[in-house]
């Protein structure tokens, strides 16, 4: 009798273990078996929104399920992040963002969440931070700017959005120069003031820089870790690369994340599938037309790079203050 009970008990334990062990594999194997909610924490029409919509155009072919895009802007993209954390950790709620919410959270005294409260699925792209100056000025080259800024400490005015300002502040710190940092709410406002001569230097993404160089502006520095492609670098007049100059700067990736408790198998599968989506010819064609570069960093590398970025942002925010 005792043996029967023991056998029955062991059988139940075995069944539970057997059911539990392949569970995550089974979950990952079936994943996704329903539409995936894709949180865009910015308004419709922006860069992140465009990325999400282009990804959704190929999701049915690759993922086998559609992406339900939800624009949840607000609180510097933190509202969408909070929403993602309130959903089950099953990989069916995905959050796509840029460094904006990380910077916002690092600037807050009492942030509603920590930048670490996410599991990074992958990076899909990144934008470089190009420092622009008007042509024909003493600061129209990086060496000229350093010389001018050292001779006139705190006089040179540099305008950019908070993301770009944070990144470039690190480059200025590394170069040992002091400039006046002027925050703008959008890159276009900063560039307009640069063209009007109201500020002396500005930072912009490479796509904006490409429209202005060489007629209206000179690209004097690539202020990110990532080098420019050979073609873009040539079109921008081969600006020096901050990393090559030995400066400590950060990257600005477009990252995709999920709830921090999501099983690793699901995250890895999502990462693989997104990588596959990025290889689709229709997606590549549209992104090429939009001037967006596809830079895929899978889950296994992206998490470490993200942690590094969070650290860099903390230092940049300290430099801004």
């Amino acid at each position, binding site marked *: 009798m005792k043996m029967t009970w023991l056998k029955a008990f062991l059988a139940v334990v075995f069944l539970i273990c057997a059911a539990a062990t392949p569970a995550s594999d089974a979950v990952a194997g079936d994943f996704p078996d329903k539409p995936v909610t894709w949180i865009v924490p910015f*308004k*419709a*029409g922006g860069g992140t*929104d*465009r990325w999400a*919509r*282009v990804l959704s*155009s190929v999701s049915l072919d690759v993922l086998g399920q559609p992406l339900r895009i*939800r*624009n*949840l*802007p*607000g*609180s*510097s993209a*933190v*509202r969408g992040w909070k929403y993602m954390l309130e959903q089950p950790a099953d990989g069916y709620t995905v959050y796509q963002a840029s460094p904006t919410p990380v*910077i*916002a959270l690092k*600037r*807050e*005294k*009492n942030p*509603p969440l920590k930048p670490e409260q996410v599991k990074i699925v992958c990076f899909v792209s990144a934008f470089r931070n190009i420092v622009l100056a008007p042509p024909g000025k003493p600061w129209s080259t990086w060496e000229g700017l350093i010389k001018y800024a050292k001779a006139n400490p705190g006089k040179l*005015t540099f305008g950019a959005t*908070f993301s770009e300002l944070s990144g470039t502040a690190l480059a200025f710190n590394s170069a040992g120069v002091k400039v*006046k940092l*002027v*925050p*703008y*709410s959008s890159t*276009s*406002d900063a*560039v*307009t*003031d640069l*063209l*009007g*001569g*109201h*500020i002396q230097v500005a930072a912009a993404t490479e796509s*904006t820089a*490409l*429209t*202005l160089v060489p*007629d*209206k502006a000179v690209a004097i520095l690539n202020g990110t870790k990532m080098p420019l492609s050979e073609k873009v670098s040539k079109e921008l007049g081969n600006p020096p690369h901050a990393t090559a100059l030995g400066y400590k700067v950060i990257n600005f990736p477009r990252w995709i994340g999920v709830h921090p408790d999501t099983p690793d198998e699901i995250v890895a599968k999502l990462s693989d599938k997104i990588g596959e989506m990025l290889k689709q010819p229709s997606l590549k064609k*549209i992104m090429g*037309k*939009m*001037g967006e570069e596809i830079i895929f960093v899978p889950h296994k590398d992206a998490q470490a790079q993200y942690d590094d970025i969070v650290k860099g942002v903390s230092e940049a925010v300290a430099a801004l203050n």
Partner: protein
Amino acid sequence: MIDYAALGQAIDIVFQLNTLLWLLVGISVGIGVGAMPGLQASTAVALMLPLTFTMPLGSALGLLIGLYKGAIFGGSISAISFSTPGTPEAAATVFDGYKLMRAGKGRKALLTALYSSITADLASDVLTIMIAPMLAIVALKFGPAERFWVMMLAITLIGSLSGDHLAKGLFSAAFGLFIGTIGTDPIGAISRNTFGLWWLSDGIPFPPMLIGVFAMAMVFNELLNPPMIDAAKDQARKLAENLLKKSEGLSAREFFRCWKEISIGFGVGSFVGLLPGLGATAGAFLSYAVARYASPSKGIGSGKIEGIAAAEAGNNATVGPTLVPLLAFGIPGSATAALIGGALVLQGATPSPRMFELFPHVIYALFIILIVGNIANLGLGRIFAFAYAKIGEVPKQYLIPVIGIMAIVGSYVYEENPYHVLLMLIFGLVGLVFRLCKIPEAPMVITFLLAPLAEENIRRALLIGGGDWVATLMNSPISIALAVLSLGSIVFSARVRVYQRIAEMRASELGDLRE
């Protein structure tokens, strides 16, 4: 200099069946989206953008510009019909539009909005085509200090919107100023005045606030005076008959009577559209304020077509000039310009300073579609105006619950945020208190809109100027001229008030003598 070969190519692109059909689709969808409070022109354009990925240039531009133009007119439909601005740009239209609607002149109000919008839009498009590069250079002269003075001039002009009691107007403006500071400090990027609520860190969004102040406040006000049930039954019986009646239209004479207000709207709107960051809502309010200021005897604000003409011309005249920075420098001047820029990039015509040289046919096609879009909007707009004008005949006891539901749904769909519904209800109560105490809402709305922009610019200007106030604020002849104009408007406004008071006292003395 007109490039005739490129112009011919552009005409070929535009006058194709596909382009014209997509333009009509865009306008029809746009009017529907704009009439729904909370959904904005830029949202409509953004959501339809993926459709354009595979379209040829003409069809893509036709759809996007149609959507934009339709949504702007759609915004005025709900502003006039339900006292609920469908888009923030239409908020200034509520003041006179809804009063006309309730007076049974809905069709007249809607047609005034349509005709004045199209006239100002067309004129601003032509102006942009003729002198876009020159306008772009003028726009660049306005740096942070100059932009600050433009806001100051706008704020001093709202003296004319402060009603009969200056103190109440000032209170309203001060309240708007305070709520405008809620959110993230534009320079330090640190939350302030948020009462510890993280969801207020982006500040109070404009659409839910407007819907609360204009629509929900009216619903609350009506709830304080519930109609008699018998009267409701009686009115219900008459509803079917009323809906069959033709609402009073707009005569050519009445329309031409508004020439002054449309001209003001065109001038103010074109100027505002050129400056980055201000936008169509500021254009509408500023034009409305200037029109009231210019013709105090016309009674703008008490249900006059001139008020609608000024507001609608002011917001639509920003459309063409908004595209100037995009076409001249590749820098979008507004959210919608950014989306149109995105569509141009997808079509291989990246906006840049060399755009006039590299893609002249694209620029001509864009402007021809803007003009053709106006004409198509006129045709479709008339049909919608006729249909919506019937709403004025609907008894209040049926209309008010509909407005209440639209206000709740509209404030939620804006960003799918339940907190926005809460904010809308709070602002509904604020608006109710304002109504009961006869405090004008316009100064609050305009300072709420302009004060954060003014703060951002003055603080940026001071950063650039090294903290020297005089050197910063008087940095250029433009700044000095705008400062003088601001001061002049305060002095002029005060003098007008004194003369009005003297005239009222004389009139009352004469009345006493006659008695």
